[in-house]
């Protein structure tokens, strides 16, 4: 039985396309401000530090606390 790669169904292709149109592309401007009722509340400068817990604790010399 010959199996050939299907062209994505039009629904799926549309989802992929729209995802790229609103999720990809050139981004103009760099800051995000979240506000409510025209009052700026949060300046979003996300810096996610992803380090395994034991590495972080070891590096700052803390003893690991075990949860009960």
């Amino acid at each position, binding site marked *: 039985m010959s199996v050939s790669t299907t062209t994505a169904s039009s629904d*799926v292709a549309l989802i992929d396309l*729209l995802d790229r*149109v609103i999720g990809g*592309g*050139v*981004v*103009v401007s760099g800051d995000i401000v979240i506000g409510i009722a025209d009052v700026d509340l949060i300046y979003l400068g996300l810096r996610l530090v992803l380090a395994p817990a034991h590495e972080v604790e070891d590096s700052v010399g803390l003893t690991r606390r075990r949860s009960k």
Partner: protein
Amino acid sequence: MLLYAVVPAEAEAPALAGVCGRELEAVRDSEVALVAEECERAPEASRPMALRYYKIVDHLSRSATALPVRFPTVVGDRDEIVQELARRAPRWRRRLDELDGLAELVLRASWPDPAAADAGQPGGSAYLRRRAAQVHATEQVADDLERRARQVCRDVRRLPAIAGVRLACLAPRTAESELRRLLDEWQQEDAGREATLAGPWPPFSFVDQQEAAAS
């Protein structure tokens, strides 16, 4: 003003109406231009609008290399566009040259769940091992497909996916059939595998030089 795409400065002004019904214009710098439309208010960020927007960007990309702008991006006026151009024109020009003649295709792949047989097993350990197996399978497929895709793709980037694997491939439009052949090969190697291809369309995922983290 709604922004559509970055194009080379020498590109012809597009004779098209935009999503707000006004004529598109090209705000030019010495090296690049930004195609924009005067919109009274930001267009609604809806599916039909995004699709209309896409069709225009696609049309633009047929006559010149274009870096699509994320939808919807609205700036205050022409002056802001000029400022943006001044800041980023050299980088954009470089990227336009690099992307000349290239389009984006998106691969989706799915495969049988490696942990399906153990799905019923109760308990935390069984759960964690099932998840580990699924995560490993995903990594493996992504690595494998990326390796194969790179035979025809100038660049490959991973896209977020809730299930399965999604990859964006940067390649000439003519590479589509070869990419399809590679996917067929992958698909036939194991029962239950499925691969689909979408595109080609303008290179939304490749407008930056460095790898985009999440987009």
